[in-house]
């Protein structure tokens, strides 16, 4: 039983990390139909920015704020310099642009930060909490709380505010949205800025667990993408459930089957889900746009 609880806590820890990053995909996907593969780089900027600002003597909370600001600026630049000029191109081209942008951000981070791994202290210390025989890091609760907070905020924003509704309208039909007076360019820009901010917050919350370096975004974006597909791309519930599920799958596969096959086990489950439900667990049926 203690074993089961330990695997569960490990799965929830890793899963919450995936979920938090996956949430960042949601907004941009909703606003533009683009899967932003530079999302992992926003996460990296959050963690690395905080580490370096703190190393320069800035108090930790302020360093975190600076890092979020840095990521938001990066998000705005990505939208203004790369996405907007290519707006007429299809989503595939835009996705490739985000991959290129990710490479650029990673390269710049390598030069302006460094190539080493860095850590941040746990917000509530590093002494593990024991729950029914499982040892859990207090930072896990911060990550879970952050996931919940961002999820609720996003849910409220997309269903209760006019801007959020405008965002969903833009995704559903760009032309129609423009016809009813929605500034779709502004909506897309907003989506990039907020997503970058969410990514940076995620990066700050997870660094005490995962550590960070210039390259960490690659792995996180990939896992979070899998989580998003599993849960249903563009749906915040899907991002959270997909992330947690993926983390739990990996942990149980590593614990009960074999650690060599844990990634394979997770992918097999993903494939099975997609066979039965092609748009993921919570995805809306994909509609052919003409």
């Amino acid at each position: 039983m203690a074993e089961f609880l330990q695997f569960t806590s490990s799965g929830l820890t890793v899963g919450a990390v995936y979920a938090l990053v996956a949430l960042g995909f949601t907004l941009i996907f909703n606003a533009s139909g683009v899967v932003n593969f530079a999302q992992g780089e926003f996460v990296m900027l959050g963690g690395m920015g905080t580490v370096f600002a703190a190393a320069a003597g800035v108090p930790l909370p302020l360093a975190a704020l600076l890092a979020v600001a840095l990521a938001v600026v990066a998000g705005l630049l990505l939208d203004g310099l790369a996405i907007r000029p290519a707006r007429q191109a299809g989503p595939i081209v835009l996705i490739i642009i985000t991959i290129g942008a990710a490479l650029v951000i990673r390269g710049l981070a390598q030069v302006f930060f460094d190539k080493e791994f860095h850590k941040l202290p746990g917000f509530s210390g590093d002494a593990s909490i024991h729950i029914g025989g499982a040892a859990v890091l207090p930072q896990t609760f911060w990550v879970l709380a952050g996931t919940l907070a961002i999820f609720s905020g996003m849910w409220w924003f997309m269903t209760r505010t006019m801007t959020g509704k405008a965002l969903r309208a833009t995704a559903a039909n760009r032309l129609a949205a423009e016809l009813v007076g929605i500034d779709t360019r502004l909506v897309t820009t907003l989506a990039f800025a907020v997503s970058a901010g969410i990514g940076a917050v995620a990066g700050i919350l997870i660094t005490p667990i995962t550590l960070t370096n210039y390259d960490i975004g690659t792995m996180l974006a990939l896992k979070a993408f899998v989580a998003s597909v599993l849960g249903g791309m563009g749906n915040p519930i899907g991002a959270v459930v997909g992330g947690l599920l993926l983390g739990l799958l990996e942990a149980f596969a590593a614990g009960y089957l074999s650690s060599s096959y844990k990634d394979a086990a997770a992918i097999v489950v993903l494939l099975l889900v997609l066979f039965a439900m092609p748009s993921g667990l919570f995805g809306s049926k994909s509609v052919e746009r003409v």
Partner: protein
Amino acid sequence: MKSECSGSNRGRVLAWVGAVGAVFLAAQPASAADTVKIGASLSITGPASFLGEPEEKTLKIYVDKINAQGGVNGRKLELVVYDDAGDANKARTFATRLVEEDKVVAIVGGSTTGATMAMVPVAEDAKVPFISLAGAIVIVDPVKKFVFKTPHTDRMACEKIFADMKKRGLTKVGIISGTGGFGKSMHDECVKVASTSGVEIVADETYGPKDSDMTPQLTNIKNKAGVQALLNADFGQGPAIVMRNIKQLGITLPVYQSHGVASKSFIDLAGPAAEGVRLPAAALLVADKLPANDPQKPIAVGYAQTYEKETGKPVSTFGGHAYDGLMMLVEAMKRAGSADPVKIRDEIEKTKGFIGTAGMFNMTSTDHMGLDLGAFKMLQIKNGDWTLAD
């Protein structure tokens, strides 16, 4: 006429590319003909940059020093460095460029085993001596005529660790290794030498190179009956996370790491969780704590001080491997009294009693690494610093 013309054009383009490469990548002006060129392809960026960066800095610092003292055999050295970013394909291309266009007399590094193995055929074909800075035993076993290496092998690390375990009466080992190149190679070597070393591997777990939580694997090792010691074979951030997870789970078994974590950043990342960990490593890390009569002491202290003064960063064993390779090469060139690659190779093979940062090298025609187990020190992390364990 036409083909001749395009031929000369191509030649000019190649020369131009070569010149640009020499200027930008070696960051040194292309200089007069009476220099001796030494080539290097290192992983200065990319995932293995923690190896390549100190190696590149070390080579540059010491080539400058040697030139300031008049060079080798009356000729200045010219260093040509390329960055393969840990990519074996690029390493092979750069090795070809080094021998065919830059016409180097010897190559130092290969930072990773993958890059090294891609460069080996090039050096062998061109009959250019090649001193690798990578770990795995496949580089020198079987022996390749022109290929040498300066770091200890992973098999030696396993033997050293198991010998230390046995001395402490720990014979049932749980091993957790990364699935990257280094971790996998060391895991396989450890499994091979376990029975002859008198220890038994009772638990065997792995994790991916970018995993951020190893608690399920460690829980399984913890719950395995009879495990007396834990061995983690990997480099990079993985071992730091393993140590943090070990502390999180409250596992109190003695923990051994490999020489792959022998840099200060491991202690920084793992923090208090690294306390008490043992690992085999070159004496370089404890240079100032060596007894005064240790023949390695002046070399290790000298290199550590020079590196830390010039770069402002803490010394790691990886840069030390580059120092050993370069100095061994320079001594061989002096003994050969010539810049003929084949003569230099013969002299590298005759290296006897050469003391470097990794220990004393005694090369033979059947041993192109030349270190024995005595060159490895068993270190223990105490109060956030390296100490000699015995």
